[in-house]
């Protein structure tokens, strides 16, 4: 125990965080005896029932991803084809559903164009990326990049994520397919392709998520998760590998940038005895892990992050997080008994 405390203090010093004893607890209780999870600056109360709906009327299968639209609504993508898109208000009230033909609906990205909201959806069963209006009208569909020479057939293309940059160009991560990253212009014409399957710096095993990182306005980059490798990789916008951020033990899904922090759902802990060993992870503006709700306190020893793992069996298989304009977080889970999203209220 004393060794652990020592390590913790070392880590806090190296992270430059002012340490207060209260922040060391990963699982604590306030005056009202509500459970509080998380560490340091990012701590939350948990509402397990936030997204619950009548499963006979509005069922979910896997809850894959969530975004907040310009009206402040929370948009969920599930692969249940009775209602692929479920739209809630921030209090968990059902507002609207649409979509019946996204059997592999996986990636969900909000695109804002001239004051109007659009969605980019990836579907690994249709082997397509689909752009829709916020009401579900299809704008275009993109098939596998046949001319790139990287794919023998459409079945090899199983896109998991997209991200959009200011000029309307967007990138697609083929995380369940051949592990390439595709760069398209606003009209869906292929400009570049990079990555591919492998363990080299510029390659991926499960390129599951991608995100445009313009926190440094002068040096915008792409963040791509190599989930099986427990690594977040940074690339320039032209596809040049820049650097890696290792998160030992954490199968990170997609990076979600909110203000200066990066938020991740972690599908599982790499070496856990139970499969449903997921948790959440938050990095600060220096890409240092500062909080792991549901898991171990993030500790750096000699600048290396110690292995992270689930400590309380609160989450099963978190697959995506969405942070709203009140700093609260919504958690969508894959393969978790067809449960609805959970809401975390920041304290």
């Amino acid at each position, binding site marked *: 125990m004393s060794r652990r405390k020592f390590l913790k203090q070392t880590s806090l010093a190296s992270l430059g965080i002012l340490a207060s004893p209260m922040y060391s607890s990963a*699982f604590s209780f306030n*005056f009202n005896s509500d459970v509080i999870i998380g560490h340091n600056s990012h701590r939350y109360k948990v509402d397990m029932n936030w997204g619950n709906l009548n499963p006979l009327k509005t069922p979910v299968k896997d809850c894959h991803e969530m975004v907040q639209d310009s009206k402040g609504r929370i948009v969920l993508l599930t692969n249940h084809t009775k209602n692929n898109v479920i739209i809630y208000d921030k209090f968990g009230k059902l507002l609207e559903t649409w979509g019946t033909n996204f059997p592999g609906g996986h990636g969900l990205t909000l695109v804002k164009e001239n004051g109007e909201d659009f969605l980019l959806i990836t579907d690994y069963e249709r082997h397509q990326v689909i752009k829709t209006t916020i009401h579900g009208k299809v704008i275009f569909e993109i098939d596998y990049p046949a001319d790139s020479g990287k794919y023998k057939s459409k079945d090899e293309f199983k896109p998991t994520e997209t991200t959009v940059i200011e000029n309307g160009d967007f990138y697609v991560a083929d995380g369940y397919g051949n592990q390439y990253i595709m760069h398209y212009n606003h009209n869906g014409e292929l400009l570049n392709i990079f990555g591919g399957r492998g363990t080299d710096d510029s390659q991926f095993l499960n390129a599951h998520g991608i995100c445009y990182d313009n926190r440094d306005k002068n040096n915008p980059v792409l963040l791509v998760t190599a989930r099986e490798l427990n690594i977040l990789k940074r690339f320039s916008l032209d596809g040049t590998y820049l650097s890696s951020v290792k998160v030992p033990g954490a199968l990170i899904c997609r990076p979600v940038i909110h203000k200066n922090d990066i938020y991740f759902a972690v599908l599982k802990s790499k070496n856990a005895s*139970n499969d449903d060993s997921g948790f959440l992870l938050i990095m600060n503006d220096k890409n240092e892990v500062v909080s792991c709700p549901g898991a171990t306190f993030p500790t750096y020893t000699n600048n290396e992050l110690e292995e992270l793992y689930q400590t309380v069996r609160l989450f099963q298989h978190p697959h995506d997080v969405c942070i709203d304009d009140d700093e609260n977080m919504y958690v969508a889970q894959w393969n978790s008994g067809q449960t609805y999203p959970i809401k975390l209220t920041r304290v």
Partner: protein
Amino acid sequence: MRTFLYAFVISGILFNCSVKNKTTFLQPNTVSLAQPRVMASNNLIDSFVTISANLKLDGISIHYTSNGEEPTLLSPKYKYPIKASEPIIYKFKAFHPDCNPSETMELPLYKKGLNVDAIVWHTNPNEKYAGQGPITLINDKLASFIFSDSQWVGFDSLASATISFKKKTFVESISLRYLNDMASWIFPPESVSVYIDEEPFYKNTTSPELLKEMLPREIKSISLSIKKEVTSLRIEVNNLKSIPAWHEGQGQKAWLFMDEWIVN
């Protein structure tokens, strides 16, 4: 204690400032702890091994037993690494005043086995999970929980091999170690048969109790009493041919993963 006081004061302030709504937040004692992480310097005892246990969470205590019983808060508390020299099963469980206890984590220890002179395979493992080749099951090396660990040999059909000694050797027992990782479709074997010097000696099928529900990932072993002088043992381990109905792989064949056959 100091930690709790601070938390009390600060969160009290937060509470007073916040607007109360009807949200019901998660309450204490509704969530379980994860299993503690238990490591042994080696699971095969030559003279002694060192066991350590950990769950990096404030306020927890880990208790353990070595007599086969389930650990409780009254069992010895884990404080520092344990030195063990007997082939027994250690059981660890984590407790926290505000969480439900973890599931028990078992750590079986084995006496380092007799040296086997040869192993001949009659069937082949799946090529993706061929381990370190034919000697994997007798190389005195045990695997971790992770099925991609190269000390595992994975079969999707019958696993059959003969181990032999240069001269007649008294064998007390043999332990077959396998992985139970149902989420990855890796199940306990359906049946095991042993032939001594090619004569049928033993056959048993796995208890249905082990297949009743999704269990946490675990390394288990089947221990068979031999108590005979032998020159060879042919061992046939059948994978489960039909995954039970409660599992997503219902009706399909299961994987069988083994890392070591320990002969004593």
